[in-house]
């Protein structure tokens, strides 16, 4: 199951917003991947991988998880990305 989300944080998924996102993904009961549109997905539980994506504010990312509870997990992570985590 996939979800496309626009990253709200003006500065993108740099150190602090990425840390908040990775922490939430690590707490999820299923593995989650994150990708820039049309690009290779990476492990959303890896801060190194997420920083490597270099997602800018206003860019779309695709989250993916499969299995029981995937929808709830994607909802939660999508909500995080649409908040301004710099706030």
């Amino acid at each position, binding site marked *: 199951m996939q979800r496309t989300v626009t990253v709200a944080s003006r500065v993108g998924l*740099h*150190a602090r917003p990425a840390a908040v996102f990775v922490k939430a993904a690590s707490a999820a009961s299923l593995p989650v991947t994150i990708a820039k549109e049309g690009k290779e997905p990476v492990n959303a539980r890896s*801060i190194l991988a997420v920083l490597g994506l270099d997602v800018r504010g206003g860019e779309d990312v695709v989250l993916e998880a499969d299995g029981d509870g995937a929808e709830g997990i994607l909802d939660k992570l999508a909500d995080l990305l649409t908040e301004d985590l710099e706030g």
Partner: protein
Amino acid sequence: MRSRPLAVVAPVSGRAIALSEVPDAVFAQNMVGPGAAIDPDRGPGVVVSPVSGILVKLKPHAFVVTAEDGRGVLVHLGIDTVNLDGGGFVLLAEEGSMVPAGAPVIRWNPAAVEAAGLSPVCPVIALDADRTAAEVLTGTVSLGAVSAGDRLFTWA
């Protein structure tokens, strides 16, 4: 599996402090990862790579180097410095290139960062280290004066 402990050197000269002293909750609570921080000497300075490896990400205010075994170290130059949009930072290396530990990566001026109302404190973070393992980082320098290139901590 991981082979050898990874020696992480100080990217800037200054005073090594515990991450918990960084004026940013996300860094101070180890949310980005465990590590240490340096309160840099004020005045123009050169930031060096903390490990030998590939400069996988290079921004004016932060960079990540992955060592040969794949472990990544983040150096963040000051807090909220992303908001400076690169002003005052000069890149001395290219993203994607190999950098030896101690090689120049960025030129900056912590005094100018401070004058802009931001903290110039530099977190140095072991990315994806097991946050629950207290022994992940050993040999953290007796917090105090360090020169760029001095051992800051060892990533077991």
